[in-house]
């Protein structure tokens, strides 16, 4: 510890006179000491550089957002192609539907489903394609949390994201993944709370998914009217990724 004390005192500017001369001479004659002194200086500089640390955290978050938007846009394109194909078959289906319209009406009204039933049909855990290595876990609380979520460790993931939002209340990614973890833990009141925060922030890339999952959350909480309101808004917006699903779900709601 003596060397550490000497180096620390030197870097603090607390060495002077003969003590300083002796130390500098030692550094000049001892390459290992010289290297150790450089390392101390570099480590201090790294710890003090809060800007760089903050930038890295922002870049981690920006990457997660970018992947999320990319996934949403890929799925929208797939849905659009599906819709075009569907329109062809609708022409033929319309003829058959006319013939069986009376019977079809009876079948549909008999097959209305409860909110709970609809939830179990339509709820799928949110899938994230973000590739995370175990060596990334120390880099960022968010990446660590996403990794835990991907591993199905929802309790720990929720703890991680809760810590993130405590120190950064504007981190929408953390609120979203917190909500997804809580969904798996079946803590629906807390899910709704987190998703509302996202929806109040119009700029978030997660708004689309937050709408849908909030609707499902209300179904599970048996708040049918609130669920219907949300799914109606989603289905009315043809550009919304979940528009078709929302329409389908509304037709089945009892």
């Amino acid at each position, binding site marked *: 510890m003596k060397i550490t004390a000497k180096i620390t005192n030197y870097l603090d500017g607390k060495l002077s006179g003969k003590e300083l001369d002796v130390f500098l001479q030692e550094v000049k004659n001892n390459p290992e000491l010289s290297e150790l002194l450089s390392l101390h200086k570099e*480590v201090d500089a790294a710890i003090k550089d809060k*800007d760089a640390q*903050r*930038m890295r955290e922002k870049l981690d978050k920006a990457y997660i957002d970018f992947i999320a938007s990319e996934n949403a846009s890929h799925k929208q394109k797939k849905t659009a192609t599906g819709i075009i194909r569907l329109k062809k078959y609708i022409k033929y289906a319309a003829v058959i539907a006319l013939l069986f319209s009376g019977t079809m009406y009876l079948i549909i009204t008999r097959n209305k489903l409860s909110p709970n039933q609809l939830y179990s049909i339509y709820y799928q855990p949110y899938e994230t394609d973000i*590739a995370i290595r175990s060596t990334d876990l*120390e880099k960022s609380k968010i990446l660590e949390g996403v990794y835990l979520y991907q591993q199905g460790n929802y309790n720990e993931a929720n703890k991680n994201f809760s810590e993130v939002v405590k120190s950064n209340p504007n981190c929408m990614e953390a609120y979203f993944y917190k909500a997804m973890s809580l969904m798996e833990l079946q803590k629906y009141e807390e899910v709704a709370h987190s998703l509302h925060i996202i929806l109040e922030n119009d700029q978030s890339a997660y708004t689309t998914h937050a709408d849908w999952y909030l609707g499902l959350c209300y179904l599970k909480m048996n708040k049918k009217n609130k669920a219907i309101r949300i799914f109606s808004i989603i289905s009315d917006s043809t550009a919304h990724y979940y528009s078709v699903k929302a329409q389908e779900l509304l037709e089945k709601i009892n």
Partner: protein
Amino acid sequence: MTVHVDDSLIKGLINDDNKAISQIYSTCYNPVRSYICKNSGEENDARDIFQEAIMVVYDKAKHNQLNLTCSLKTYIFSIARLLWLKQLKKKQKSIVQLKEAEEYTEVEEDTIEIYNKNTKHALFVKHFKQLSKDCQKIISLFLDGKGIDEVTIIMNYNSTQHTKNRRYRCKKSLINTIRKHPDYKKLKNENYSENNKLPRW
């Protein structure tokens, strides 16, 4: 990207603007990812290399050393390309069949030096954050310029001697952990003298 847009993105980067950072990802990430994945890399590699390229740009911009002679997109791609070639060389992967696609430019000689400094600093911070909360706090307080008496009060220690000893122990522990880490040894040994310059493809 126009010069005007590039300037505002760089300004946004220096000012930690989330929208600017997001736009940089939207416009510049895919070419880097495409290049790396076509040349023996994976998504994780692309993610890391892109982040390191941005950190180089950020460092230069902060120190007023950024003089773009091409678009920001080309510049970022060129840095990422250089960093990836360096990685391939480290992994001793064959780069004979390199697939080039995007336009790139020669980057400044200090690019690798800045990258090395940044990655070393990231390693140091990673180890710092693995110290106990108390150790992190005591080291940070002194680096923020707080005096021994003030730190003793904040940390609720009994004496200034105890504060000093604690500080030295925490710092020594941090330095020893870093020195033993294989990544630090690798970074220390990297030397980019004339003999180690990457061949020109």
